[in-house]
């Protein structure tokens, strides 16, 4: 137990170091942040504009009113902030490192290779989406005159963490994949495309797509489920399903990563 606690402390310390390091790099390019924020805002304008158009024709869509759907859109921006700030740069680094053989230097370090390879970099400028997402959620709650109960907030935070864990598992799996297929640019694009379906509530999609993104490839747990938790309409069974799915995905991705590293034969040898 004590050893486990020590390891946890060590990894959290490392995570802080990675973040500090990335922050210093980001501060070198301060103007980028303004640019990224502008793009996030434009993107939000687009997403909200699109949603508004839907709602000029119907008052509810899949049981969601406009302001309720805004929470989902906000969650999508939070998730895509994580994707842009953590997923994209690290996956790109892994691809590059496997191709050139620089992965050797990661593997010989006395830390978990998956931890190091997938969380090493953090693009602070891309966190602007996170900010925009939080603003959207806040605005929607104000408009709905809703004050979620503490347990709803708790469930919301838990499910948001599960969403991040799902995305993290996806990133680790993608990174592991590039040990076998060197160029995963196409697969990467496809996965990012599929994540676009998280922009709107899962119930707004027609069957069979709705079932597919709710249960089979649970993209719904990235944005719809946390929003439902905040609105207090998520059933306990679904919440458990989401949390279990995230845990299983994490475990699977860790296994995939171990297999990938075992398969790795450096570029130069």
């Amino acid at each position, binding site marked *: 137990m004590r050893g486990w606690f020590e390891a946890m402390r060590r990894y959290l310390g490392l995570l802080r170091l990675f973040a500090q390091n990335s922050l210093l790099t980001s501060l070198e390019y301060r103007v980028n942040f303004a640019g990224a924020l502008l793009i996030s805002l434009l993107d939000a304008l687009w997403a909200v504009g699109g949603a508004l158009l*839907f709602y000029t*024709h119907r008052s509810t869509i899949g049981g969601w009113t406009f302001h309720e759907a805004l929470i989902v859109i906000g969650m999508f921006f939070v998730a895509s902030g994580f994707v842009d700030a953590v997923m994209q740069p690290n996956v790109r680094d892994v691809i590059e490192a496997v191709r050139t053989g620089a992965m050797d230097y990661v593997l010989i370090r006395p830390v978990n290779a998956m931890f190091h390879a997938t969380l090493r970099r953090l693009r602070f400028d891309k966190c602007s989406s996170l900010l925009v997402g939080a603003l959207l959620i806040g605005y929607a709650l104000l408009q709905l005159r809703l004050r979620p109960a503490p347990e709803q907030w708790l469930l919301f935070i838990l499910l948001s963490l599960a969403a991040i864990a799902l995305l993290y598992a996806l990133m680790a799996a993608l990174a592991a994949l590039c040990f076998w297929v060197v160029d995963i640019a196409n697969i990467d694009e*496809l996965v990012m*495309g599929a994540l*676009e*379906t998280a922009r709107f509530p899962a119930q*707004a*999609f*027609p069957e069979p797509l709705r079932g597919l993104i709710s249960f089979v490839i649970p993209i719904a747990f990235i944005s719809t489920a946390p929003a439902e938790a905040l609105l207090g309409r998520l059933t306990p069974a679904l919440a458990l399903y989401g949390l279990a799915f995230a845990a299983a995905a994490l475990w699977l991705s860790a296994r995939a990563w171990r297999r990938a590293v075992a398969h790795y034969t450096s570029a130069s040898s």
Partner: protein
Amino acid sequence: MRILKVYPALLRAYWERAAAYRAVFMVSLLNAVFPLVMMAIWIGMAQDGPVAGYTAADFAGYYLAAVLVRRVTGVGIVQDVERLIRTGELTVYLIRPLDVIHHFSARVLTGRVVVVSMLLAPVALAALAIPGAQFDLQPANLLFFILACVIGLLFEFLAQYLISALSFWIVQTQGVAAAYQFVKAFLGGYIVPLALFPAPLAAALTWLPFQCSVALPVEILTGRLAPEQAALRLGISAAWVTLIALGARAAWRAGLRGYSAAGA
């Protein structure tokens, strides 16, 4: 007409290049996901009755056509022109006897053939698989459609050429291009059919240049426009093309006057 003699050779050269980079075009097809997400939601809504006159099959037909037409008329040359101007490589083209615009037009035209031939089969299959006729394939309508595509392609090409001329004066041309793409996708019928905007806005949008490249060809192909409506909007598009051609020419002339290459 020396240019008519030069063009076949130019097209052949760029054709070989386009054929060599087939895989790159594949990737560009994937960014068609966002309109397809919009399509799925409209189809979901249309299950309890048509939305502003669009049934589920209409939506499927519209977005299929939009994805296809976007590949026919969409142009992406700003990045390359901007690089030529910024690095001074443009000089190499300027001392050649042929205006630099022809190099880009040849490249765009040959790229079209690769993309469209790759996309035609999947779109045709999807159109056949979805119940209900979505496309109006009568010869007269097809003629209108082809004309609209040609005008749309011309518009896109000249608009991009105009935007890339900004590189003579500013550094962030690609940002301007991205903002343009952004606005155009939303107001030009790629993300949402114009008819689904509130009526006054929808009417205004048919007069704006954004309708040229996607909305108009798609609305013609899906049989939503009466011949006189189609003719009117083709006229609007042609007027915009003329205007933007003049603008692009003026901008390039002014830009080249002040241009001095790095290292020259």
